[in-house]
C-alpha cells in the first residue's frame, strides 16, 4: 500500500489526520505527520521528513501531502521527489484525506496521486453555482 506523509505548517497535519479519523470512524487511517514551524532549522525538517518517509514506505512508494506550494514544508518535501517512489501533492485538504482512506488499497503511487489531486480540486465548490446546475456528483 502506498505510504502517506503530511508535511504542513503548525498543527495542520495533526489536525487533518485527527479530523479525518473522526469522519471515517472505524476505517484504518495510517498517515504520518510532520508538523513544521518556520523557525525550525531546514536540515532538521528534512531529517524528520526523511524519517517519516522511511516509516511510511512498505515498498509501494510514498505520497507526501503539503499544505501550500512554495511554503517551507512543500519546498523541503520537493527535495525527496523520486520517480515512481516518492511524489508530492500540495494544497492538501480534508476531502483528499477522506477519499484517501477509501481509495488507497490496490492503487499505484501514480494512480492514487492522480485521483486525490482531482478530488482535492473537485471539492472546491462555489455553492451558488453548484446548486444552480444539473450535476452528477
Amino acid at each position: 500500500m502506498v505510504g502517506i506523509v503530511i508535511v504542513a505548517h503548525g498543527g495542520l497535519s495533526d489536525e487533518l489526520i485527527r479530523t479525518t479519523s473522526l469522519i471515517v470512524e472505524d476505517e484504518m487511517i495510517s498517515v504520518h505527520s510532520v508538523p513544521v514551524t518556520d523557525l525550525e532549522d531546514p536540515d532538521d525538517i528534512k531529517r524528520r521528513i526523511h524519517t517519516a518517509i522511511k516509516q511510511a514506505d512498505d515498498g509501494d512508494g510514498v505520497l507526501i501531502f503539503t499544505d501550500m506550494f512554495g511554503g517551507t514544508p512543500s519546498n523541503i518535501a520537493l527535495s525527496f521527489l523520486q520517480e515512481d517512489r516518492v511524489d508530492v501533492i500540495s494544497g492538501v485538504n480534508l476531502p483528499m484525506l477522506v477519499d484517501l482512506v477509501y481509495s488507497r488499497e490496490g492503487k499505484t503511487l501514480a494512480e492514487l496521486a492522480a485521483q486525490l489531486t482531482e478530488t482535492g480540486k473537485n471539492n472546491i465548490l462555489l455553492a451558488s453555482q453548484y446548486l444552480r446546475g444539473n450535476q452528477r456528483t
Partner: protein
Amino acid sequence: MTVEKQLTVQNRAGMHLRAASKIVSALRDFKCDVELTYEHRTANARSIMSLTQLIAPPGSVLFLRVKGPDAVRAALALEKLFQDRFGEE
C-alpha cells in the same frame, strides 16, 4: 439484477460526512453499482465526496438504484442503515 427503491434520510444532520462514510463502508463487500439521486443530483454511493455533494437534508427522499449480482443484499443493507439513522441519535 437491478433494484430500485426510495430511501428517506431520517437522521437529524442529513447526508453529512459520517453518514456518507457509513454508506461507503456498508457497501464495501457487495459487487454492484450503487447510485443515489436527490433532486437533480446523482451520487456514486461508493464515494463519500460524491454522496455529500447530494446535499440531502433531514427528511429528504433519495432514489436508490443498485445494479449487479449483489443488488438485493446491498439495497437491504442500505435500507437498514437509513432506517437506523446511520447509527446516530
